[in-house]
């Protein structure tokens, strides 16, 4: 994000009511469909709805905690080393999430693979820390993190649901189609992720265009 858009964007935000901080991440500035941020996990672990949900919630948790901490510490973090500080904060919570998921379900942890650790480099989280939490009050930062995190989860779920439904005929591991369902192998492959994302982006852009 360039400096100019960032400042105008912030100026617009400051006038808006606090509930807007929460709502905007869900729809108007949805991280997946509008900002197209953090595409690595969106494409990689959206092959089933369950993976997508866990990934989305893990990201939401890290986002919420890091946004809170960054906004609490924003007066103390020197401007010159702020990125390093943010990454340190984010990495702490990512490590916690990593262990947490491993403790709850080893199977899920293995399914998500390295992508849990890779939340640390998710540009959505660093982006919110830099663009929002470092200049706003803790309450607003938390609302922003929740909105963005849930918007991200929503985006992941949109992809995961379609891919699981077509790729294995089930949703959240519940079999939807009757026996002899023909699985669309491509939906489980990375290519299917790109196709699904493209179709969702098309739908969202068309919806936005018709609204304008």
């Amino acid at each position, binding site marked *: 994000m360039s400096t100019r858009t960032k400042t105008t964007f912030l100026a617009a935000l400051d006038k808006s009511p606090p509930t807007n901080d929460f709502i905007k991440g869900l729809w108007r500035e949805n991280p997946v469909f509008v900002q197209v941020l953090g595409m690595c996990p969106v494409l990689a672990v959206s092959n089933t709805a369950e993976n997508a949900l866990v990934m989305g919630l893990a990201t939401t948790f890290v986002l919420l905690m890091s946004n809170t901490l960054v906004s609490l510490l924003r007066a103390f973090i020197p401007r010159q080393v702020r990125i390093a500080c943010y990454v340190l904060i984010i990495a702490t919570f990512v490590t916690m999430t990593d262990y947490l998921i491993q403790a709850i379900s080893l199977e899920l942890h293995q399914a998500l693979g390295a992508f849990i650790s890779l939340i640390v480099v998710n540009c959505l989280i660093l982006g919110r820390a830099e663009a929002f939490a470092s200049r706003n009050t803790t309450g607003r930062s938390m609302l922003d993190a929740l909105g963005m995190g849930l918007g991200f989860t929503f985006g992941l779920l949109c992809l995961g649901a379609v891919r699981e439904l077509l790729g294995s*005929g089930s949703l959240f591991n519940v079999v939807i189609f009757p026996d002899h*369902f*023909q699985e669309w*192998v*491509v939906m489980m492959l990375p*290519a299917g992720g790109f196709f699904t994302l*493209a179709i969702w982006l098309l739908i969202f852009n068309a919806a936005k265009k018709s609204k304008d």
Partner: protein
Amino acid sequence: MLNKTLNIAASPHITRGISIVDIMRNVVWALLPVTAFAVYAFGLGALMLLITTTFSAVLTEHVLCRINRKESTVSDWSAVITGLLLGLTLPPGLPLWMAFVGGVISIALGKFAFGGLGYNAFNPALVGRAVLQAAFPAAMTTWHPAFLSDRFSAFPAATFTLPFMEPATDGLTGATPLTVLSLATDGFTGATPLAAFKFERITTETADLALGLISGSTGETCAILIILGGIYLIARNMMNWRIPVSILSTVFVLSGIFYLTDNPIYPSPFFMLFSGGLMLGALFMATDTVGSPITPAGAWLYGVIIGLLVVVIRLWGGLPEGVMYAILLGNALSPHIDNLIRPRVYGTTTRENSHASKAFIRTIRQQPENAPGDGQHRVDLRPDHRTDLSGHTVTDSPAQGRSAGESDFQGHSGNDHKKDISD
């Protein structure tokens, strides 16, 4: 005062009296013998398959045009060709719902996502087939036998599979060792010759391959009819003959070289030439005027690349057939080939002094306001009314956006010509 307004337009300035519709209709005619033979060889299943793909392609084109609030382009026949070509590349016993999905993907993803006719970087029918191949690998490699006695009274078991359901098998399909054994004698079996060779080292008689007495995709079996269709289009100057010639000769020469090494894993060049989708691909898919280079030298290079890829995939790849991927890769490369090989614009450079001319062009490019100093090539380069060196008046705007300077001297390369013709 002049009464007339000067008409300034982008090239091409000279057009033939042939429209898109003419070319497309002729392609359909060229494909009709192939289609008829496919129906004759595979019966009702193939007929339904071809009708389904054509219908779904045309329907998708119409619906997408309506959604975009444009005039429907169905009447230019290009969607018919896409649908027909897709049907001809699919296995004859494929469930119709998969064929329908393939037609939708061909037009929506292969054509409209890029901007419609004239902008499709890849052959739309092959895009549809590639997605189907990736989505349903099992169904796409289940080959229905040709020339079954009941082919005009019964449908293949899988044809009327309910949407999203797995196709049923009727015991006739598939390359079981037994059916493959009989392939050498009569060729009336479910395995394609390429698969039989790849996995069982069984070759098929070249005559059977050329006449289409084999199993395979719906329209790829009878090489002779495909060649006849191609010759018709070439004779009417509606197909770039260099592309099929270079693809086929590359495949023939390369596989001939390997065949001479006497290693049993390499089939004879005639087998390579007449088996699989090579003929159909080389004549009707690779020659898609949008996805192939425009210069003669570019067309040769494009054909050589595709031929090379076909040989590499067939001989050393995991799949028995690679024409589809070879052509799609060739399509992807063709804009780069067009950038690499550019026609010499009349009057700019000659072979003798090309170095000097390039240096000259470089000089005037650095000082566009001044006339060049060497006196020989005096050209008016003032931006308001610039004349390009072939004598056409060029408006200034299209050139400004380009980064590398050379494009001005090429006239308008590429895309403008390509809008005329496709598929």
